[in-house]
């Protein structure tokens, strides 16, 4: 069921009730949760916050709290699974879901009030009709009751007719079921993402007239995360950026605080697809960023020569390019954007520029949206020791303005991650570990590999996968290379001996719609493998390491069809 009026049926509805916020472990959810927390404060709604990493977490936290709480708000989780089946909730429990994972589970869409979705029906694409997937079976059975008191002859005839009718009915039913199966298969074929949940939450804040620049910034961070991870199409990103830009203009004009020291400014600016260059040196940033590394093939000796050529063309002395961007000569710093844009054509670096936002407060603090996103990746996924809840808490801290040291530390860690990803790609290419298996490419991160624990996490693995696929395509002589999807596998839990498998769609598809999750399921079915997968995004998959070879064989067979 969709909630039509968010203000009345969600926000006002929850007033005075205790709720449980179940927040998925990703940046968009954290931003959305933060906006929602802000809104809940106005109505003094009591809440408890639970961090959800997967389906298991979802079940556990429901079990722990179901006795005390009746209202649940699920952020970026639960939309793609059948909640009623999963929880077997009591009658009076109500679930509000805001989820950017697609496709939404049909039972959630057609639920009669227990599961309520906080978006509009337009945001779910190609939803099958209600009658195509559900049907009332009860009247059928009542038809089949034998009627007594008829004549003997009539009865026999009737019986035959009834039989025929029943056969017809059964046949029809079988047909309908087959059709239903097809319809659902088609509907759930691709996994993809909708617009960030934080943007939806920001809109709610705007309707309630409680929006401000801090909340806008959260929405921007969430959107940028989706862009960096390639969760949404470019066109979607551009549209959303335009929307947020108008909000930022409106909010800027509304406040009359123009003092440089205290005011918070969000400006709409061009950004470069270079990781953290404002907080790093130009050379390192150029070298380790996916975009430039793949275009210039920086992992090779020739590539690094080309990099120096580019720097020379830009008129950037080596000593300048190797020191922190902040300490570069003012003139060079100002001209950096222009000079690299001017050369983008010569070095085949078109699309280097994308539009984004910059947050500025005080004189010293200036962050691009992408800086914050990388910093948050570092917090959420790079520490092997801290528990997810601790990471979650420091990620929440990272978004508050007065915790500058947290951001700084995280940015330093993000640099290490970026370097590690680059080095892994370089090693993979040098050692020719990226293997073509007929109709797909795969790469396996071995257990002993340096910093493997980073890649057992969802998003860093995704970043690596994209990097590898692009690098592979740019290096490969195979003309089919851009049409091949990549499947990457990394160890997940050494004690249990499991590994995570992620598939990303081919480059030429140029759309984040991902049907590899379906392929994984089918392959697992073919080898009769019981699925352990705990992820909401079906393009991630978890299996035992010892079954991996068998699983890949099954996949190869499947793709060859």
């Amino acid at each position, binding site marked *: 069921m969709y909630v039509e009026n968010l203000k009345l049926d969600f926000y006002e509805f929850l007033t005075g009730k205790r709720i449980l916020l179940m927040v998925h472990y990703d940046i968009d959810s954290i931003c959305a949760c933060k906006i929602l927390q802000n809104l809940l404060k106005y109505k003094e709604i*009591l*809440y*408890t*916050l639970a961090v959800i990493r997967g389906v298991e977490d979802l079940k556990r936290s429901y079990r722990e709290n179901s*006795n*005390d*709480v009746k209202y649940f708000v699920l952020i970026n989780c639960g939309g793609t699974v059948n909640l009623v089946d999963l929880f077997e909730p009591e009658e009076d429990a109500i679930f509000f879901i805001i989820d950017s994972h697609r496709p939404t589970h049909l039972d959630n869409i057609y639920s009669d009030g227990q599961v309520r979705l906080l978006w509009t029906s337009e945001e779910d694409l190609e939803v099958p009709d209600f009658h195509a997937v559900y049907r009332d079976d009860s009247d059928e059975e009542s038809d089949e009751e034998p009627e007594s008191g008829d004549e003997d002859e009539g009865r026999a005839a009737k019986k035959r007719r009834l039989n025929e009718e029943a056969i017809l009915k059964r046949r029809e039913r079988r047909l309908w079921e087959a059709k239903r199966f097809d319809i659902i298969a088609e509907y759930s074929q691709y996994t993809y993402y909708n617009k960030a949940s934080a943007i939806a939450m920001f809109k709610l804040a705007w309707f309630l007239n409680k929006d401000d620049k801090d909340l806008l910034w959260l929405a921007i961070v969430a959107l940028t995360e989706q862009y960096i991870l390639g969760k949404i199409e470019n066109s979607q990103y551009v549209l959303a950026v335009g929307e947020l830009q108008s909000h930022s203009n409106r909010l800027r004009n509304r406040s009359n605080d123009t003092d440089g020291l205290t005011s918070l400014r969000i400006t709409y600016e061009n950004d470069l697809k270079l990781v953290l260059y404002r907080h790093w040196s130009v050379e390192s940033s150029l070298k380790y960023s996916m975009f430039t590394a793949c275009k210039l093939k920086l992992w090779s000796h020739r590539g690094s020569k080309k990099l120096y050529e580019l720097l020379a063309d830009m008129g950037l002395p080596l000593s300048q390019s190797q020191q922190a961007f902040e300490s570069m000569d003012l003139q060079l710093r100002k001209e950096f954007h222009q000079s690299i844009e001017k050369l983008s054509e010569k070095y085949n670096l078109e699309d280097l520029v994308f539009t984004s936002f910059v947050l500025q407060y005080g004189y010293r603090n200036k962050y691009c949206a992408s800086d914050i996103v990388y910093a948050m990746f570092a917090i959420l996924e790079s520490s092997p020791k801290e*528990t997810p809840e*601790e990471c979650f808490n420091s990620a929440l801290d990272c978004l508050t303005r007065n915790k500058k040291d947290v951001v700084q530390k995280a940015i330093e860690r993000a640099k290490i991650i970026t370097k590690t990803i680059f080095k892994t790609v370089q090693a993979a290419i040098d050692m020719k570990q990226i293997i073509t298996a007929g109709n797909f490419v795969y790469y396996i991160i071995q257990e002993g590999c340096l910093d493997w624990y980073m890649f057992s996490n969802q998003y860093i693995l995704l970043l690596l996968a994209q990097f590898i696929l692009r690098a592979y395509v740019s290096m490969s002589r195979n003309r089919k290379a851009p049409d091949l999807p990549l499947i990457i596998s990394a160890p997940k839990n050494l004690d249990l001996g499991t590994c995570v498998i992620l598939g990303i769609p081919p480059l030429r598809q140029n759309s984040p719609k991902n049907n590899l999750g379906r392929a994984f399921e089918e392959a697992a079915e073919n080898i009769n493998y019981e699925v352990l997968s705990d992820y909401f995004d079906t393009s991630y998959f978890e299996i035992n390491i010892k079954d991996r070879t068998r699983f890949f064989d099954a996949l190869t067979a499947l793709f060859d069809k």
Partner: protein
Amino acid sequence: MFCEKAHVLIKELSRNRDALPPYNTDLLNEINTEVKQLITQNQEDAQISEDSRVMNHASYLPTVKIRHAAIKRNIRCILAYHYNRLKCLRNMRWQFGSILPPDVKSNLSQSEIEWFSKYSSNLVQYMRSIGDEGINLAVDLKPPKSLYIEVRCLTDYGQFELNDGSVLLLKENSRHYLPRSECEELIRQGVLEHVV
């Protein structure tokens, strides 16, 4: 040596600055006996010197003076020991409220327990006398800005019942948004942490 035991007592005190170790009855008894002994010796020596003054013998007066200084020092140490314990106990009254945790209570002496209950009742009486309905001085260490605050749970505390009867589960690292008045005490106990 004089006053050695008192010194041990003081050392014990300074080792546990913010905590209450068990009340050291044995050591205190020993110091008491030492003081008593010194007093009897002093009395005897004083008697002898009183008698000998007549006979023009050497006086024991310096010895008596040294012993007296030792007695005074012993008493000072005992007083310091008690005073510091009471100070710590008073802080605990503000920290934990009128009911002490059992592990603290078992470390107290009988008279300390008496003092504590008297102090508590005095405090309650005073708080009741302020204003019409009285005011709880133990809450709101800083002036509150809002009725509700966001808190983070630092330990696995388990079930916690709010004033309105609803129950919530306090698990390590979970976050909650709760009425300030209800969690103030838990914050002081270190179960919750206020998230700013």
